[in-house]
């Protein structure tokens, strides 16, 4: 039987990294996610799998270390929380522009500014709409349990390499700090340098051998025609992701007349709200986007004809709700409920807000 261990969501990220064949972690401490690097340092994976772990001087530096590692075709990752991820946005733009795969974990806290160390979901726009400069997207996965924190590490790398793009795990302080049992998946070995050359020598800086041209990893293209082509390539990848890699979970949506859309820790809370509503005879369902980009637009589209209202519930002032409204396109009312400041609402608080909104 697979090994199950009680651990924090953050610790699950670290164990998953070691066990899925990650080559390197480069990070900078910040609450509420410091356990990721602490666990890695304690585990000393360089002694076992050969994974490199390094504490950088800043988030700016961490993300650029990721850039270097990703250039080499290595599986590399970093993690941080909101203010730190803001510092990484320059690097994320370069990574996206240079078509490099990597994983960035953001255990979101309340903002703006230094904000609070309590949980938040106010980085949705930053994660899903760019954050850095230019027209780029990342694969964004939103775990709602410690097990998903674990499983999404491997999945993120898979998608990042499939599309040669940065992937982000957008968690929140609740999911990062919460302890749950986590099933450890079988160990995957790291790729050898020879395997990396076989798979990625068309672009990775593995060392220029006489049998191939030099590889140059760059996001620079001063020729307008070439630069537009590069952008079109990126956009084509994003459209492909929207076609092939949307992930979501539905609870009680089959007969639903109302649907709450919530991700991460709020999806867990709204699950209880759905149960409460059902007890009162209200046909409420829950749509939990697992990929925030690509967003489950088509699924919302499919649900709208059977629904009276939708409601986005977030630990923000209303960010994902904009994507829900774009998908609904004015056909039914889309309500919103959110708390700020690191306050996590209870299921009945959400239920009250829901009832108030539908009886308006």
């Amino acid at each position: 039987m697979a090994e199950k261990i009680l651990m924090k969501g953050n610790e699950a990220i670290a164990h998953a990294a070691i066990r899925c064949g990650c080559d390197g972690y480069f990070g900078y401490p910040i609450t509420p996610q410091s356990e990721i690097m602490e666990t890695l340092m304690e585990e000393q994976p360089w002694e076992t799998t050969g994974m490199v772990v390094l504490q950088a001087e800043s988030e700016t530096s961490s993300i650029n270390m990721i850039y270097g590692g990703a250039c080499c075709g290595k599986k590399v990752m970093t993690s941080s929380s909101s203010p730190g991820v803001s510092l990484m946005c320059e690097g994320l733009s370069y990574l996206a522009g240079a078509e490099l795969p990597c994983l960035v974990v953001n255990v979101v806290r309340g903002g703006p500014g230094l904000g609070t160390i309590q949980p938040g979901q106010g980085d949705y726009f930053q994660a899903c709409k760019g954050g850095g400069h230019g027209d780029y997207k990342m694969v964004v996965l939103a775990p709602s349990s410690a097990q998903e924190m674990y499983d999404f590490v491997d999945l993120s790398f898979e998608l990042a390499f499939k599309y040669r793009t940065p992937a982000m795990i957008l968690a929140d302080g609740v999911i990062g700090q919460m302890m749950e049992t986590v099933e450890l998946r079988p160990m995957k070995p790291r790729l050898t340098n020879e395997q990396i050359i076989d798979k990625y020598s068309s672009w990775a800086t593995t060392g220029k051998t006489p049998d191939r041209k030099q590889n140059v990893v760059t996001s620079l293209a001063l020729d307008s025609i070439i630069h537009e082509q590069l952008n079109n390539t990126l956009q084509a990848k994003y459209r492909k992701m929207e076609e092939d890699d949307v992930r979501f979970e539905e609870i009680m949506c089959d007969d639903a007349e109302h649907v709450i859309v919530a991700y991460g820790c709020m999806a867990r809370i709204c699950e209880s709200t759905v149960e409460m509503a059902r007890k009162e005879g209200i046909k409420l369902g829950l749509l939990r986007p697992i990929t925030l980009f690509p967003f489950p637009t088509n699924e919302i589209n499919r649900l709208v004809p059977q629904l009276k209202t939708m409601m986005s519930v977030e630990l923000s002032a209303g960010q994902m709700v904009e994507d829900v409204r774009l998908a609904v396109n004015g056909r039914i009312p889309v309500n919103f409920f959110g708390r700020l400041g690191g306050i996590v609402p209870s299921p009945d608080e959400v239920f009250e807000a829901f009832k108030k909104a539908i009886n308006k």
Partner: protein
Amino acid sequence: MDVNDIIKPENMVYSKTPVLTSTTMHYCPGCSHGTVHKLIAEVIDEMGIQEKTIGVSPVGCAVFAYNYVDIDWQQAAHGRAPAVATATKRLHPEKYVFTYQGDGDLASIGTAEIMHACNRGENIVVIFINNAIYGMTGGQMAPTTLLGMKTATTPYGRTKELHGSPLRITELLAQLEGTCYVTRQSVHNAASARKTKRAIRKAFENSALGKGTSFVEVVSTCNSGWKLSPVKANEWMVENMFPKYPVGDIKDL
């Protein structure tokens, strides 16, 4: 000896290293970058490490270094090359990894990255081109711009009161325990270019020995930015740059 004799292989006295591509350089006539590129390419060729060398190019005039030196390159964000090189070297300890950075890139926006890479003693080589001005953006003040020097952003000359003094970052880096070799060179004549080549070779050899970070500053000219002819720029550099940035080894462990 007529031309047919001259072109015979046995009479050849000089040839361009194949590590230097045949692409026409975009640098202004008289610029030091081309010479330093050539020296790096020759060192890579002579050490036989073309397959094992990864370069990290900066933002600035040398962003296109990858067009001229025929190895694998990573183009870094402004100032971040030492962080990029850190991970590359740690994940590929058997490779030779070097950054090539200008004064704005290394000594202004990238000070944190270069300080900490040197302090950790990353086994990388850093080539630092100091021409005391921002070339690519059109001649603005650099951290290494001399007092009194006129640039696009110091049209009346750099003053200590307004801008602070020129930053001798090479001396600072020599203080760090992670650096094993810190030297300042130039390429304004054949003798100095030969010395610089020896310094670059030594830096690459240190990297293989795992001695720590090797740092080679090259005091350079920027004719366009300085608004001087190539010959005048060399003279100006010797007269004005060398007193502030004296050439020679600062640290050699």
